[in-house]
């Protein structure tokens, strides 16, 4: 025991004298672009509204539709984002971006009984549209796949939380509140179309 105690001091001294680079910070870890991407969704209402609308729709259509959406949406978003990263031109069609969340908002408000595969297909289409625009925009500013990975992880978490919340709703008024939220998203989409035509959006 005493021998072990004697060894502790030189071991500690040796450890202190031979430090390695601390990689806990973004500058040294290389995770800065990842967090840039993760934050991107929070400050991009166009992407966020589409994401929320499709996950609300999936939640209203049940747990199977939600499970499919939670995986299909990020995968489609990431795949299209990677394509956007390697494309030589910047692609951004604001009317398509607005149309995507406007249609999703209308569907949430109307609350149709879609098959889970249909919901997954809709989520895939939305993911491809927004992912392509995201990837293309990231390529234009010199950001790489790490930023895209940040976007993918964040949208997976948001999709998971929102759809799980909606699936768990039982009281009728809570499901109607979800439909009201969908009508608000659709209303924002309609106004945005107006702004786009006017040249302000």
């Amino acid at each position, binding site marked *: 025991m005493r021998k072990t105690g004697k060894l502790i001091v030189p071991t500690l001294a040796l450890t202190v004298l031979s430090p390695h680079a601390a990689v806990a910070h973004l500058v040294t870890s290389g995770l800065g672009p990842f967090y840039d991407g993760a934050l991107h969704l929070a400050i991009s209402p166009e992407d966020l509204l589409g994401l929320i609308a499709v996950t609300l729709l999936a939640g209203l259509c049940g747990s199977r539709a939600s499970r499919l959406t939670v995986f299909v949406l990020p995968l489609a978003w990431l795949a299209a984002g990677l394509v956007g990263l390697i494309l030589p031109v910047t692609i951004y069609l604001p009317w398509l971006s607005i149309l995507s969340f406007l249609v999703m908002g209308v569907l949430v408000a109307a609350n149709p009984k879609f098959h889970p595969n249909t919901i997954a297909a809709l989520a895939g289409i939305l993911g491809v549209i927004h992912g392509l625009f995201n990837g293309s925009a990231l390529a234009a500013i010199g950001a790489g796949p790490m930023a895209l990975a940040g976007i993918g992880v964040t949208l997976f978490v948001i999709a998971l939380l929102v759809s799980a919340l909606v699936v768990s709703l039982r009281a009728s008024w809570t499901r109607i509140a979800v439909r009201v939220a969908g009508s*608000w998203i659709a209303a924002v*989409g309609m*106004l945005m179309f*107006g*702004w786009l035509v*006017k040249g*302000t959006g």
Partner: protein
Amino acid sequence: MKIKASSLKLCNPVHLCVFFLMLVWPLVAWAHVESGQAGGFVSGLSHPVSGLDHVLAMIAVGLWGAQLGSPAMWLLPVAFPMMMAFGGMLGLIGIPVPGIEVGIAVSGIVLGALILGETKMPIIGALLVVGFFAIFHGHAHGTELEAGQNAMLYSLGFVICTGTLHAIGIAMGLVHRWPSGRLVLRVAGSLVMAGGLFFLWSALA
């Protein structure tokens, strides 16, 4: 569990006076950006409540919905923001709607009269009435974005505030379940109607 006297020192009158003096003597907070994107959201939020004619109509939609009961109570607040946004879009793309101010004033009169008379109506009819008047409100207010602000956040704030006014109307309208509440609701309808008449007078004068 006893509370020590020392822990109640904040109740000292002198301390309380200093505390309230600090509360009523705020300095300007420079921590927030009051223009640009954040300003766009706040502008959108505050816009619907900036005119009493709009506030009356939006609360009246909630009141009438509560009076009609489910499903109208929920469907009317779904329809109004969408049709209002449609009206706003018409305004933005340059399609004129005649008699905007008159339409807004008449919405107060009609919705007030419907609440006053406890008028029952098929859900399609109620949606058509509310949707028709929502176009006037959207056309008048949806287009007033200040320069340099974010249109998306303005629209979000605008729609959220409108929906909140409906929710306030529905919450107030829940008094309908009591006999005296029904009377109160009808009186509220008469006030909305009187407000609408006043705004119609102002629009035509």
